[in-house]
Structures are given as C-alpha cells and as structure tokens.
C-alpha cells in the first residue's frame, strides 16, 4: 500500500518539476509529426503484401513472392499433456513491424509467444511439433543454442519484474552475463535506458533500487534490460495491463519507435491498443489461428464472424 503511494508521489513530483512525461524524452524520441510522416511514407512504399487480403493468412510460409519474414512458423502444434493448446499454426512475422496477437483468455497467445524463444522448454509436460524459423534457422533444431536464441528474442512480461538490484545493475545484468567487456557496459546502459525512454527520469539515480521506480518506469526498465542484450525480436506479453493510461501511452509510443530497429510481437487484451500500435493482427481462438492480416483490415472489415464477434465485444 505504502509503496503504491510513494510511487504516485514520484510521478507527481516529476510533473511538478516540469518533467512532463511526454516531453521529457525529446532527445531520444522523434516528434510525433515525424513519426506520422514516416508512417505515411512507409504505407506508400509497403508493397510486400500488395495482394494480401485480410481473408487469407497474411504472411504465408511458402509464398515465395512475398518479402521474407523474420519469423516463419510452419504447422506448429503444442500440447500440455493432453491439452492441445496450439493447433496447426502457420504464420509469418514481417521484420520491423508490430504484430499483435489477440484473443480471449486461454486461447494460447502466451503459449504461442513463448514458442518463439523456447520458453515452453521449461514446462515439463509440454510437447511441440512443427517448425519455427528465425532468419531461416529452425529454432527447434538440435543444434540451436537456446541461450543465444533468448538473447536474440527478448521478452517483456505483463508484470514488470525488475531484479532486486539497482537500476543500473538491472540493465547491465544481461551484457555482463553475456561477457561484454566492462568498458562497454556504461555506454550500453545509457543507450538502453535512452532506447526505453527512461534515461532522463533515472540518470541521476542510477544507483537507486529498481523498486523505487513507479510501475510504468519499472516496465520501461524491463524494456531497457531487454534492449541491453541487443535482441532482434522483442515479445511483449500484455505489457501495459498493469499500467495507468499515461504510462500505457508511453509504452505504446516506445513500441512504435522501437519497431524501426526491432521486430515486435505484442499480446494484448486491449483492442484499442492493438489497433493503435500494430501493423498486423492475428486473432486466436481455442488454440487456432482464426484470422490474420493487416490491422486496419482486421478491425475495419474482419472476414471471419468469430473475429468480428470478438473485436466488437459481442463474443461468447
């Protein structure tokens, strides 16, 4: 209880100091206009899915004509014991885009997300069939180095989970265990905190405990921690569900910015959030991929009535 209060006091104090959360990162953030402009250009140039109709699975594995996807999932099945949790999933994830996974609770979104960095390996009764290629390499092949995979595919969870150490050490942790030389670490920490739009808020208190940060700041710290090991892909599992609207917007803006350098997959229960930030959306139901396509198609004119039922809130 007390912790919550002092967190609020922190962000309030920041506001009083004139550190408006949205303005505070002008160094590392492009202005909103710039972002919009870039999106427009991107839209015009976006030819890779020209023929794509939201009715078809967007980025299909075998179609040679579409631009290469960074992740290709082919006929993936997953069981927890007898529970067939993912059923014959095939999908391609394009590089440098935000891909949203939506669907009702228990449909398998988190499970699917975890297959991409083999987090399900740790679950004892979990069995997987099918293939997932990242940069043309089957991550379920015997020779795959799982530690290296998890470095390439970072993950941010629903509940911010900073380590019980200082802000600085949280971010430095990954590079250190991956054997990055001591000299390089301060630079990586600063760069990662800037990348996560947190630098200005914490640069004078890097030695403070990570728990002294607000929930939204902790979540950005976890993003910074992920960025510090320089992944290619970042998986977000409901990263904003515990955050207030301002922190949520901040994370959303951050994700929009991060896609220039990273490929992003986000699981969200917030339809407006999926619509706001993602380029592509996939709708899952009972372990099946029901429909996938450009986000604007999924939200304006879904082809499957189950998708329509879900996004309009008439599901069930």
């Amino acid at each position, binding site marked *: 209880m007390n912790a919550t209060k002092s967190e609020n006091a922190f962000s309030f104090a920041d506001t009083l100091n004139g550190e408006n959360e949205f303005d505070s990162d002008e160094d590392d953030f492009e202005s909103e206009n710039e972002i919009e402009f870039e999106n427009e250009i991107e839209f015009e140039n976006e030819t890779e899915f020209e023929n794509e109709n939201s009715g078809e699975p967007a980025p299909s594995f075998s179609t040679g004509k579409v631009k290469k996807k960074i992740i290709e999932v082919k006929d993936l099945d997953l069981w927890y014991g007898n529970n067939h949790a993912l059923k014959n999933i095939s999908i391609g994830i394009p590089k440098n885009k935000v891909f949203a996974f939506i669907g009702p609770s228990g449909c398998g979104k988190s499970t699917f997300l975890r297959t991409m960095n083999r987090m399900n390996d740790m679950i004892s009764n979990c069995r997987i069939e099918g293939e997932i290629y990242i940069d043309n390499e089957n991550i379920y092949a015997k020779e795959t180095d799982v530690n290296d995979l998890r470095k390439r595919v970072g993950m941010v969870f629903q509940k911010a989970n900073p380590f019980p150490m200082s802000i600085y050490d949280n971010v430095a942790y990954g590079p250190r265990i991956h054997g990055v030389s001591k000299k390089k670490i301060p630079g990586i920490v600063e760069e990662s905190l800037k990348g996560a739009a947190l630098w200005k808020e914490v640069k004078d208190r890097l030695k403070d405990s990570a728990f002294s940060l607000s929930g939204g700041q902790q979540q950005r710290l976890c993003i910074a921690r992920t960025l510090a090991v320089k992944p290619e892909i970042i998986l977000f599992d409901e990263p904003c569900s515990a955050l207030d609207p301002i922190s949520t917007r901040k994370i959303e803006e951050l994700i929009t910015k991060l896609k220039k350098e990273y490929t992003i997959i986000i699981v969200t229960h917030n*339809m*407006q959030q999926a*619509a706001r930030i993602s380029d592509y959306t996939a709708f899952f139901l009972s372990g099946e991929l029901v429909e996938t396509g450009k986000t604007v198609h999924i*939200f*304006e*004119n*879904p082809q499957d009535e189950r998708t*329509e039922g879900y*996004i*309009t*809130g*008439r*599901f*069930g």
Partner: protein
Amino acid sequence: MMRKSYNKELKEMRDEVIQMGDLVLKIFNHSSDTFFDKEPVSAEKLEKMVKKLETIEKGIEKMAASIITLQQPVAKDTREIICAVRIAMSWLKIGSHIADIYEYSDTCPEKIKNNPRERDVLKTIKAITHEMLIDAADAYKSRDTDKASIVAKKDDEVDLIFEEIRRDIIKENDTTSFSLCSLMIVGHIERIGDHIANICEDIIYLERYEIVRLN
C-alpha cells in the same frame, strides 16, 4: 447477452434513421397533394414536420458522437454509425427540397392544371420519386443492397426528364412562368434523386464495405 446497452444504442440510432425516412415520405405525400389534389396541406403543418426532421437528425448526430466516445466501435459498427449520420443528413436535405417545392404551390398549380402535357410530366416524375423514396427507406430497413442498387438506377429516369424539360425551354425560347415553374420543381426533384442515390451508396458501403458511385 454481451454488450446489451451498446446493441440497444445502435438499434435506437438505426430506428431514428428509419423514422426519418418515414417522415420524409409523409412530407412528400402531403406536399405533392397540394399540387394535384383538392385538399392542400397547411404550410404550418409542413413546417412542423420539417422541424421534426431536423430535430431527429441532430439527435442522431449526438447519439453517434456518444457511441463513438463511449463504446469505441469497430468493424461494421463503425460503418453503422458513419452511415446513420450520413443517411440522416440526406433525409434532411431531401425534406428541405420537398419544402422548397411546396413553396411553388401558391403560384403553380393553376397553370399546371391548364397544361396537360406539363401536368403529365410532373405526375410521372412524382410517381418515380415517390417510388424511389419508398424503396430507399425500405432498402435501409431491410439492409437490401440489391434493392439499393436498383433504386439508385431510377435516378437516371429523373435526370432524363429534367434534361428534356430543360431542352424544351431552351429550344422554344419559351420562358413562360409555367415552364419555368416546372423546371424549378424538377430541378429540386433532380437533387432529391441524387440524395436518394447517396443513401443507396451508403447502404451498400454499410453492408458490403464497398465504396460505389451510383450516379
């Protein structure tokens, strides 16, 4: 069972649009009676009906704004709202064109009666318009996109008659108030036809997510 009040609000908005269509038909019937029948409708009564049309239209706008703000509609629901606002606007404009036509009833009817040819043309165009209004209102009610495409086609007939009268006047260089009166009336009817076609386009967009140009 999901989103009961949301569904109810959308339905209420649709019902208001339907009500506008019905009211426009009433306005049309009353004011055309003034031209062709013995019992002319009073100007006040017509004005009242047009006022009511305006009130409903404003109400639909308000409902749309509040549903968008509070319910964040997506997919077909978004089109439902956009089209309700657009169609309500079309009905309102149609209503006001009919009211404009009514203004001529002070000066025109005697002359129309004396010229059987013009009288016939006006009766024909009245019948076409009447049918289009009924069918457009019906197509919205029953979400019938085929009907919507057919209704919009009839607009061509109105355009032809309008052209014919216009050419007639120019050719004969006959600027008697009688023909001019017909021209003015048919000019309004021509605009009404355009608005009906817009309504039909909206119905098709709403149901099929296709943007079509019907006239």
